[in-house]
Each structure stands twice: as C-alpha cells, then as structure tokens.
C-alpha cells in the first residue's frame, strides 16, 4: 500500500513524519520504500546513511524550429495551449520559449512543413538509494528554473521496483498539481498540521482538495500543546480521523534539526508511528497492493 504524507505548507513536520514512519516500519522488519516527491527541496534521504544506486535524468522534448523550412503560418502557435511559441509573421520572427513548453508535442503534429524537430531537455533527476539491501529510497530532484516538478514526481513514483509492504511518499507542500499528482498515487493520505490558525487554514484547503479527489485521509497534529483547540474542533466536526499527536518538545525539535531520526532515540515515538501505520494498513490497505 502507498501512503502519502502531506501538509498545506512547508515546515509543519511532513518530512519528520515520513522519515519516522519509514524508520519505524524498517525496525519492525517490514519492507518499506520511501519516495521523496518534494522535488523542489528534497530532504528526506539525508536522514539515512545509504549508497546511491542509480540516477537518471527526466527529459522532456522541446521543439526546435528550422527557420529555413518555416513559412510562418502560425499553426504551431494555435496548437500550443501554453503560449510557448512566440511568432510574429509580418517580421518573420518565431521563437520557442522553453520555460513555458510542456513537451506535449502538439506543435510538431500541427506543422505540415516539417519545420519542427525536437530536442531533449532535462527537467531534473531521479536518484535511487538502497538501504540494508532491500529498502529503496527514491528522490525526485527538479532543476532550477523548470516550471513544474510533476513529470519528475511521476518518474520517481514509477521507479518503485522493490517489493514493499508500505511505500511512503513525502508529498510536496501546497495543494496544486505537484500535491495532486503525489496524493493521487497513494491509497491513503496523512495530513500533518499544527494546532495554530495558520495550520488550520492550510489544513482546510488540503481537506477540500482531497475530498474532491475522493481520497481517504487522516490527520497528524504536530507540536501539540501549541496554539489552540480549533484544529481539534474542525477535524471532529468533519469526522476526520486523528491518527496521532506529536507533543511539542524542544528535544525532539533539536534532534530533528540535527538530521537525526527521532524514533531512533525515543522508542515510545517509534512505537506510536508503527502502531498508527499498522492500523492504517489494516483499515485501508486492501485496495490494490
């Protein structure tokens, strides 16, 4: 089964949860895969001492226009949904704006003068690592300046090729395309939030999006004890399962920012993460893998 860990904004403890679930399952002899889908700032793998296994570029095909064959008919521009082709026929000017191109190939189909060739452009990398010979860690890494990490995220999820009981997907923050493509691949989504007004407003947005997607999900409240009760009232009212509360604790925060898996030191926390995940597997795990 695949579980995505998400939060409305960065910094709520999403990576903390993802890495600790991974570790807790590992310690309990499960085969686990961790996929860091936060391609703009992947930071999950660094918590584990692993060796890189493989690394490859995710490429997209971008059109190249042959100015000798182009008749400036504008058909390619009309076919492009993303304003990625700039053309001014009166002055015989045409240019592809690569940053806007989605590599859909429509312009090549449109051109009946054979003026469009394609060239590969790298969007980013997928890196895979192996832990203890059987647990795979996968990292989506977007190149700076690329418009959207979606293609890299998809390629990273597709790279899961070890047998696993649980695949943990560390989702990108927010509720836009990168979030949607990550959570769409999961059987269950864990939303990590804080009991603060900001946490609540972000949580509401994520909940609305997941409801529209018909996803099953639950909430982990991180830094419990801070803020107020509004998050609790909201999830009770919405009937959303409260999966776990992680108390606000200076020591936990200090270990985490030092790049240490807290579950390694606090067996209590490890046990909580393990039992929570086991429950999720029992309740929601029978839908597919």
């Amino acid at each position, binding site marked *: 089964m695949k579980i995505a860990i998400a939060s409305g904004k960065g910094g709520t403890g999403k990576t903390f949860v993802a890495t600790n679930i991974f570790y807790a399952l590992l310690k309990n002899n499960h085969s686990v895969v961790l996929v860091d889908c936060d391609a703009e700032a992947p930071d999950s793998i660094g918590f584990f001492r692993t060796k890189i296994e493989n690394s490859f570029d995710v490429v997209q095909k971008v059109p190249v226009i042959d100015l000798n064959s182009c008749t400036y008919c504008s058909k390619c521009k009309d076919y492009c949904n*993303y*304003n*990625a082709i*700039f*053309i*001014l026929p*009166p002055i015989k*000017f045409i*240019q592809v*704006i690569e*940053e*806007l191109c989605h590599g859909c190939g429509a312009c090549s189909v449109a051109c009946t003068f054979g003026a469009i060739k394609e060239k590969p452009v790298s969007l980013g990398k997928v890196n895979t690592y192996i832990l203890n010979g059987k647990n795979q860690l996968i990292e989506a890494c977007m190149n700076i300046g690329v*418009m959207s990490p979606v293609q890299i995220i998809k390629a990273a999820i597709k790279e899961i090729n070890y047998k696993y009981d649980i695949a943990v997907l560390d989702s990108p923050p927010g509720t836009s395309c990168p979030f949607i493509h990550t959570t769409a691949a999961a059987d269950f989504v864990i939303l990590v939030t804080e009991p603060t007004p900001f946490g609540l407003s972000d949580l509401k947005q994520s909940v609305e999006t997941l409801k529209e997607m018909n996803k099953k999900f639950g909430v982990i409240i991180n830094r419990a004890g801070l803020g107020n009760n509004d998050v609790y009232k909201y999830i009770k009212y919405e009937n959303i399962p409260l999966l776990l509360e992680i108390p606000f604790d200076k020591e936990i925060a200090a270990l985490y920012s030092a790049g240490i898996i807290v579950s390694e030191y606090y067996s209590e926390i490890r046990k909580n993460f393990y039992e929570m995940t086991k429950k999720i597997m029992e309740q929601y795990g029978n839908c597919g893998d």
Partner: protein
Amino acid sequence: MKIAITSTGNSLESKLDQRFGRCAYFIIYDTETKGIEIIPNPNKDVEEGAGPASVNLVASRNVKKIVSGAFGVKIKSLIDSLKIQMIVLKETDKTVQDIIDMLNK
C-alpha cells in the same frame, strides 16, 4: 515611434502598472502623431504565458519601447531579440501622462 506603457486604468490619469505581462491596460503612444491607443490586456488572467502573449500584442503593433515596472526573466531575451527597448520605472505614483511628458522632454 510607438511606445507602450503598462497602465492600471484606461485613461492618461491612470497610474503605471508595475506588472508587464498581467497589466490591466496597455496605452500606446505615438511620438510622431501624438496619438494614443488604449488596449485592455487580454492576457491579464491567463494561467501561463501572459508575458510572451503580451509581448506579442505590443510587438505586433510595432512598438519600439515598453515602459513598465518589471519584466519577467522569461521574456527579457525575447524582447531583446525583437529589438524593443525596455524602460523600467520603479516609482508607482507616476501617471501615464507624467510618463508621456517625460518621454517628450
């Protein structure tokens, strides 16, 4: 010569719009005829590619200079290769008329 000024409104008393691609209006001023043309920006709310679409709009009207608050990185080289001059004005309280007066000096 034609000059495009990004404007927050449809009159010469309107303030300069700081955004190029998503400005509310383009006001095109012709230094020879002193005529002006006011064009509502159709690319104001497009999801992607407002910049290039707006460059297309002004370039197809033979504009040689654009006055705005900021130009996106994606379109600077495009505007350069079209040999259009970019004038960046950071003061927001200037009206389109003020800018035309400046250009006529």
